[in-house]
């Protein structure tokens, strides 16, 4: 029997009120971005006017190439390399760990898994000092490996996530593959990973966002100019470029661009990732 889903009865007035609240809220959410874009396109003389001019006259597109030159393409590459290394590295560690906990039998598995989960309770801000001391003793201060490797060890949540995804895959599939001569690595690579695409995308998107935006850890480990990711450069500019606000805002806009593009194409994955992982970073 086809029952027409009755649209919830709602008064015109109630609807108008909701639109009003949503619009006011949206105004506040978007205002900082509008301010950033508008300032980034202004000629220097208009930046410090009061009341603020919201529409630049004329539009100075040349602010962007100049901001990019100040940021240096190297900083972009550093951020991209760091993000890629964290996503792939943590992806490898967490998916394989998840497979181990989901399908292998070994003594003490439960205990090890519990210990793994336990580390999720300890926030990074608590362990950053000892982690830094370890990195410094290894002589890895101010190096890519010092920056990246400790992050790879922090994948307890991902391991948990993938373990949960992998246990839902019927064991018969793995058994059938074993009969056909596949080993664990083959089963993992050709059956479990392809069947876990939603979890993989969600985790990948959230991890890249967290890595691209990470600030505290790079701030502790990296000193030299050549190795700094964008967040460090922006934070430093933020304290120095008071007289060149238009360039600073253009630089911020440039840093946001990659994640905005990712967001435009995959808003759904961000939403899924956040609901799935509970929090970011």
């Amino acid at each position: 029997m086809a029952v027409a889903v009755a649209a919830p009865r709602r008064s015109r007035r109630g609807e108008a009120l909701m639109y009003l609240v949503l619009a006011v809220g949206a105004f506040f959410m978007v205002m900082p971005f509008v301010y950033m874009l508008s300032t980034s396109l202004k000629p220097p003389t208009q930046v410090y006017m009061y009341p603020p001019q919201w529409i630049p006259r004329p539009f100075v597109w040349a602010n962007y190439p100049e901001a990019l030159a100040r940021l240096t393409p190297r900083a972009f590459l550093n951020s991209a390399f760091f993000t890629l290394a964290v996503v792939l590295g943590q992806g490898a560690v967490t998916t394989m760990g998840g497979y181990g906990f989901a399908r292998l039998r070994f003594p003490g598995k439960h205990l090890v898994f519990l210990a793994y989960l336990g580390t999720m309770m300890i926030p990074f801000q608590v362990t950053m000092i000892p982690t830094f001391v370890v990195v410094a003793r290894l002589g890895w201060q101010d190096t890519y490996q010092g920056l990246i490797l400790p992050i790879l060890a922090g994948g307890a949540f991902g391991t948990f996530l993938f373990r949960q995804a992998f246990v839902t895959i019927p064991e018969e599939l793995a058994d059938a593959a074993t009969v056909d001569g596949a080993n664990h690595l083959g089963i993992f690579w050709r059956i479990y990973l392809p069947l876990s695409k939603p979890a993989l995308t969600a985790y990948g998107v959230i991890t890249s966002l967290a890595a691209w935006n990470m600030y505290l850890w790079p701030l502790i480990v990296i000193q030299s100019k050549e190795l700094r990711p964008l967040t460090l450069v922006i934070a430093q500019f933020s304290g120095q470029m008071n007289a060149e606000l238009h360039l600073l805002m253009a630089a911020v806009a440039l840093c946001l661009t990659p994640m905005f593009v990712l967001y435009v194409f995959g808003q759904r994955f961000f939403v899924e990732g956040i609901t799935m992982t509970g929090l970011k970073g």
Partner: protein
Amino acid sequence: MNSLTFVVGAVPASVLLPLLLAVMLNAGLRGTAFFRSLYFLPIVTSGVAAATVFKWIYAKQFGPLNQLVGLVGIPRQDWLFDERLVIPALVLMAVWHRVPLNIIFYLAALQSVPRSLYEAAEIDGAGSWAKFRYVTWPMVTPTTFFVLIITVIAMLLGAFDIVNVMTQGGPLEASNVFVFNIWRTAFIYFQYGYASAMAYILFLVVLGFTALQWVLQRHWVHY
């Protein structure tokens, strides 16, 4: 102490506003997708980038916030350099940054509330408010509680980026929040031991909230 003021200031708005907005974003209005895209924008924005922009929004001489409060006749304030205003200013930014994430949690929860409950309520003559009060609110309590706890933890841990970019703890230590203090003690003053002790206290506080969540979670389900 500053952390406490910051958390107490930032948490209620970060927990309640998203619920309100999520209910409206879930009401099936036209243009919902458009509004959602706008509301979610801060999620992909790093704390550093957002703080850099907000620092100038708060600027005394030419900042847009002063333009806005000027509309209701409040004189220009020096938001980040006034001991009394610096925490409210940081709270405002933290709420702005947190609201969209929490909207997502609420939306997921609202979408799992069975329609039949609303239909039953309508048959019983419930209006919009009654439906919210007696159906929506109890059904999302577990989420509200979850959001509350993770927001408290996030505000405790996450304030570092915005404080370091915007105020560096100032003016006169008025915005010296806990994680910033730990970082400064360890990596500026090089007192690793003292900083580690503070980190332990932070850990115990976070652990306390996590434990609270585990224990109370079971009692907070109202259906």
